[in-house]
């Protein structure tokens, strides 16, 4: 541990009582006068909830914004696929909710591995997000009297989740996208679709621009700015099979990491309990069935092993509703990590369904009987439709079969309270940062965080950076841009020149298999060491034997994919190293060696109540240095997380 490294992990958590910290912070931030804002350029990479909301809000303030996405339109970012809902401490149902309770549930849900002050701020601004979205025209579900409706999500005993059927992410993203499009029409945002960020340019240690590749022409482009915001999502696709979109990748974050941004808690990944099980070796992605389904669906397996009866002919007394049995207080609404491990436990013990034995039932019969099919259709219609399309089974008639799958990544680039990384001027928002979800994210919190960061945090804090640091004029003619651009070009040329025998996808699949088997729902010292070795071998082979067809000077999806897989092949090793060093179980990180007698995660607060932040050193992942940010819990006491 170098002291210099830990010195760079100053969280800038403001003084004062928890509830006043954000106000205190805002009161001390330096401001840029309205008529001076137009002198500053800000780059926003990614157009999901965090990126679109940040770009729109900064442009509203008067900054010149350049917005980048790899898709053909900013409206397609993967936030669009979020289904269930968004949390807010409105307490509209009058059921006892408060900012404090949302804060507490979130930090407990994260198994006490998140920063108190950040999470409290998230809960504080949650209400503003709902207001903001309603004003944009987001058609949230309503009661017959016209007021906003709520549903319940895992890890909470109140109803605080706002939703638009099973497509809340789509509606929130289209809201943010509409604000972004408005700013484009006003000339305050310049949009760069079909661009991939390939590197970060720092000058005098400050982030001053990016290198992108135009995915249509293959051209490399330099863009300068006074601040760079990274809103590039998570790294779940390191597992190849995940609920992420095919294009989701770690490249932008990993490139920033190599330019000095510390990577925090990469081993914290979320395995979502209710996904459609894997079917064949051709499978290209996994599909989530929203957690909201657990409001009305009951999870079970047969009590007898190898029970081959059809589900409807298995009577209630022969069914094991294992979540209700093990966790009577929360039942089917336990948090995701708990529900996933419980499913794995039953399947590993031989009670899983079908040929693979890797599936459990999610059953709506009781809800349909009590509420009627139409009510269930109005709540989840699009999800049931999607399920039937994929599996060819009608979930109104037979229970869904589900199994856990990789869904979200809590780890990400380290940021302070301002959302600034260890590279000054580089801000990281949404899933790409690490800050709010600790070791496990509660359902309906990702949308909340993305929009909180973009609408209500970064518009304040980025101004402080612009106002308080000397930022000499820089253009893309600066030699640093030429150097970094040449390096990015060199990497693409190298990939095209190898001309080996194996396809990019085959390497990605192989990496995914290593990660899932050794660094997935359960991890051991031996499995992690094995993974580190296997990834190293695979990476070496990749650079000697990958085959990337076509040229680098036109639209070539294989080039895009090759660059992303190359970065995953490095990043995956860091994930395993992080999981190896964290000798405790917490949230989604489950080390077999550290469990209670009844199989629950066993934390070690003495040794691991800290954020692990990795510093890039040398050229090899094995040279990465692990630093610690000790987590201070001033307001709450760390307890054993129980949902029983």
């Amino acid at each position, binding site marked *: 541990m170098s002291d210099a490294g830990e010195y760079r992990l100053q969280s800038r958590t403001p003084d004062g009582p928890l509830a006043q910290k954000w106000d205190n912070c805002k009161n001390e931030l330096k401001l840029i006068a309205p008529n001076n804002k137009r002198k500053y350029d800000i780059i926003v990479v990614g157009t999901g909830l965090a990126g679109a909301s940040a770009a729109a809000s900064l442009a509203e303030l008067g900054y010149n914004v350049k917005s980048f996405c790899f898709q053909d339109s900013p409206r397609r970012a993967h936030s669009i696929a979020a289904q269930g809902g968004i949390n807010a401490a409105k307490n509209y149902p009058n059921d006892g909710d408060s900012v404090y309770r949302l804060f507490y549930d979130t930090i407990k849900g994260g198994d006490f591995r998140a920063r108190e002050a950040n999470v409290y701020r998230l809960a504080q601004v949650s209400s503003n997000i709902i207001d903001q979205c309603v004003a944009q025209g987001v058609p949230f579900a309503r009661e017959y009297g016209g007021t906003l409706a709520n549903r319940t999500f895992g890890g909470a005993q109140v109803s605080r989740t706002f939703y638009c059927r099973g497509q809340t992410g789509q509606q929130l993203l289209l809201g943010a996208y509409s604000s972004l499009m408005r700013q484009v029409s006003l000339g305050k945002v310049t949009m760069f679709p079909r661009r991939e960020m390939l590197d970060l340019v720092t000058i005098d240690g400050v982030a001053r621009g990016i290198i992108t590749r135009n995915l249509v022409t293959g051209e490399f482009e330099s863009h300068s700015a006074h601040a760079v915001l990274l809103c590039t999502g998570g790294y779940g696709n390191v597992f190849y099979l995940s609920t992420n979109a095919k294009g989701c990748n770690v490249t932008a974050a990993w490139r920033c990491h190599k330019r000095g941004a510390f990577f925090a808690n990469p081993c914290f990944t979320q395995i979502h309990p209710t996904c459609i099980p894997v079917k064949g070796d051709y499978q*290209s992605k996994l599909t989530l069935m929203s957690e909201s389904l657990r409001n009305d669906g009951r999870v079970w397996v047969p009590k007898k092993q190898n029970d081959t009866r059809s589900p409807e002919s298995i009577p209630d007394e022969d069914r094991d509703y294992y979540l209700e049995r093990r966790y009577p207080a929360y039942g089917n609404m336990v948090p995701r990590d708990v529900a996933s491990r419980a499913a794995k436990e039953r399947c590993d013990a031989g009670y899983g369904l079908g040929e693979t034995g890797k599936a459990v039932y999610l059953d709506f019969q009781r809800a349909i009987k009590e509420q009627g099919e139409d009510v269930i259709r109005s709540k989840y219609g699009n999800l049931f439709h999607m399920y039937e399309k994929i599996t060819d089974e009608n979930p109104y008639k037979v229970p869904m079969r589900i199994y856990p799958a990789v869904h979200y990544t809590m780890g990400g680039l380290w940021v302070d309270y301002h959302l600034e990384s260890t590279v000054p001027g580089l801000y990281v928002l949404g899933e790409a940062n690490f800050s709010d979800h600790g070791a496990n994210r509660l359902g309906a919190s990702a949308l909340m965080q993305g929009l909180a960061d973009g609408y209500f945090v970064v518009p304040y804090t980025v101004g402080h950076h612009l106002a308080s640091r000397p930022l000499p004029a820089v253009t893309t003619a600066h030699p640093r841009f030429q150097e970094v651009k040449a390096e990015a070009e060199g990497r693409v040329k190298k990939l095209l020149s190898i001309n080996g025998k194996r396809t990019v996808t085959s390497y990605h699949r192989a990496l995914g298999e290593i990660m899932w088997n050794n660094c997935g729902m359960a991890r051991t010292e031996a499995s992690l060491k094995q993974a580190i070795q296997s990834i190293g071998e695979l990476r070496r082979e990749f650079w000697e034997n990958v085959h990337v067809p076509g040229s680098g000077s036109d639209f070539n999806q294989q080039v895009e994919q090759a660059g992303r897989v190359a970065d995953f092949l490095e990043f995956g090793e860091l994930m395993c190293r992080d999981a190896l060093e964290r000798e405790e179980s917490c949230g989604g990180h489950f080390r077999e060696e550290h469990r209670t007698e009844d199989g629950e995660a066993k934390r070690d607060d003495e040794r691991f109540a800290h954020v692990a932040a990795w510093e890039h050193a040398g050229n090899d992942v094995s040279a990465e240095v692990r630093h610690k940010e000790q987590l201070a819990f001033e307001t709450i006491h760390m307890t054993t997380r129980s949902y029983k």
Partner: protein
Amino acid sequence: MISPGKNKLSLTLKVWRQASPKASGSFREYSLQDISPDMSFLEMLDILNEKLIADGQEPVAFDHDCREGICGSCGVMINGQAHGPDRETTTCQLHMRRFEDGDTIFIEPWRANAFPVVKDLVVDRTAFDRIIQAGGFVSMKAGQAPDGNSVPIPRQDQESALDAAVCIGCGACVAACSNASAMLFTSAKVSHLAQLPQGSPERHQRVLNMVAQMDKEKFGACTNIYECEAACPAGVKVTHIARMNREYLKATLCAQEESKEGGGGHG
């Protein structure tokens, strides 16, 4: 359409190959064996591409991302139908169990002047973004919003607005229309915002500007054939076009009033 335990398929594919926007394209024929009926259509194309790469050929370019029917990236003409034979289904959610052993499948990009081909099956749909830029928003800033419950919205209005707002912007409506009209896409946004109180202050300018932009992008006119509704994977109905037409008429009348008073309009 369902046949459990259906055997693997052998298929002949006729795929549109076009190297660049200006190059001329043509159909190329490929044969595939051992296709599982449980595969999605895009997974079938993945298999084709892996095979092409192994044979030293360039893979087929096609847009795709979420593969769960919501991002709107994917979309090709399959045997002349936008997104293929299933109702309310995107290309990524179409599964091979819908096809028979020995079938020949024609696969083409969306065809419309406003959607130029980028490569193979990939088209440029940025015209849709420009239509939204023309007015598909509520002009408000972060921090200005009143409490979400301050304006009650009848549930049926909210549900009806959501029926329009579910548009995924894939472009199937344009591809399916013999006039390459973008009326269904444009009306979905107009109708969504017209049914909510939040969208009301700008409703006249919105519809006028969005329709003007639609025309400027060279999308065709609507002649009430309703192919768009049949092709729409999100189930957006043509009744939204009717609402947009009413909105347009009202706006045209009001715009004359407003211009007499010297008010109205937005920046």
